């Protein structure tokens, strides 16, 4: 259908059709005189140096620091968003820095970061910035990590995978109804994204934020683990994360530790090798153990890495190969 002056964004499955001067659902892509432009290229509103364990990426250069950045906006609208002050506002409402891609890489190198993480809000909506920065970083020997919900179309994802080394995907639930009602998205595109990332050789870790009463059903967690096992295999790290009351779900309590422990037991029972609990300190729940000899491989205390018993990506004790990016 012909609509003079209109454009359709094809970055994510929402496919926003935009009239002149209209913005997409993500708030950062706008129809500017019949052309689609991004308002956040080179304008991050959050720039920090974090331990890579904070992403969380547990099987990716453990103990190193990651230069982390985000812009305003998001293409999902989760009622529990932990970063809603930047993800659910227009880019005009945040304090933005002027940081072109070359400068990001320069700063990452200067500060001794071995990776750049596109994180906090949603890197998919600042796609062009992510891609250009990643390309320069890759050529400079710095690795790139996406921390994303994975709500992206196949073509842009394929292109992005050429420059991305690792990704943490926030699998919010294993229910399309939950995605539609609580997050304003859909489940199927996320699953496709995870499969494609693995297929294209990106080191994937999956995080599931357990929100009490909404997505803590053991049956659903079991089905989620089965899907991971059948479609990816047992060796991709899986993180259960504790929910804290935020944004539009302040009336709910934080996730009880027992729920997280139970979820971890389900995942391990299903056959996943590396299952972790995050956002709360539980003895041993952040450590990596060898799936073969069961000995401690990486000890973690919060975001700090303690004992490491890996040798060239394999268990020091039995020689079993451990999935990850270790150097």
């Amino acid at each position: 259908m012909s609509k003079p002056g209109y454009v359709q964004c094809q970055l994510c499955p929402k496919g926003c059709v935009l009239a002149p001067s209209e913005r997409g659902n993500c708030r950062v892509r706008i129809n500017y005189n019949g052309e689609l432009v991004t308002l956040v290229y080179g304008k991050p509103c959050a720039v920090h140096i974090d331990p890579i364990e904070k992403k969380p990426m547990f099987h990716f250069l453990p103990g190193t620091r990651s230069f982390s950045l985000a812009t305003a906006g998001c293409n999902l609208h989760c009622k529990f968003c932990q970063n809603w002050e930047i993800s659910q506002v227009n880019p005009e409402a945040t304090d933005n820095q002027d940081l072109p891609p070359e400068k990001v890489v320069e700063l990452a190198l200067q500060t001794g970061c071995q990776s750049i993480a596109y994180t906090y809000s949603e890197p998919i909506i600042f796609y062009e910035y992510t891609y250009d920065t990643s390309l320069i970083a890759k050529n400079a020997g710095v690795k790139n990590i996406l921390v994303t919900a994975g709500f992206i179309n196949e073509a842009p994802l394929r292109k992005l995978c050429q420059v991305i080394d690792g990704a943490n995907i926030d699998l919010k639930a294993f229910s399309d109804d939950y995605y539609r009602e609580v997050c304003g998205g859909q489940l199927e595109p996320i699953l496709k994204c995870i499969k494609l990332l693995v297929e294209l050789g990106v080191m994937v870790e999956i995080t599931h934020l357990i929100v009490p009463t909404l997505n803590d059903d053991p049956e659903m967690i079991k089905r989620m683990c089965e899907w991971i096992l059948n479609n990816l295999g047992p060796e991709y790290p899986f993180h259960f994360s504790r929910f804290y009351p935020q944004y539009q779900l302040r009336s709910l309590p934080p996730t009880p530790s027992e729920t997280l422990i139970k979820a971890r037991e389900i995942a391990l029972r299903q056959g996943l090798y590396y299952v972790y609990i995050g956002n709360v300190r539980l003895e041993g729940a952040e450590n990596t153990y060898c799936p073969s000899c069961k000995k401690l491989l990486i000890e973690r205390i919060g975001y700090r890495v303690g004992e490491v018993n890996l040798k060239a990506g394999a268990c020091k004790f039995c020689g079993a190969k451990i999935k990850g990016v270790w150097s």
Partner: protein
Amino acid sequence: MKENKREKGITRRGFLGLMGMIGFWFGFLVKFIKNFKSTIGSFLVSHHPAQFYRKLD
């Protein structure tokens, strides 16, 4: 001579009026600063060509 019974100091009515005026101008100022920040903010965003879209012409 008629005695002037008016007490010295501000009356209850005057006090409420003053508070109302302060509230009005405070609200106006907050709104003005917010609008100003948004106007300034619009100059602080970029207009970089995006990828992955199609024209519906």
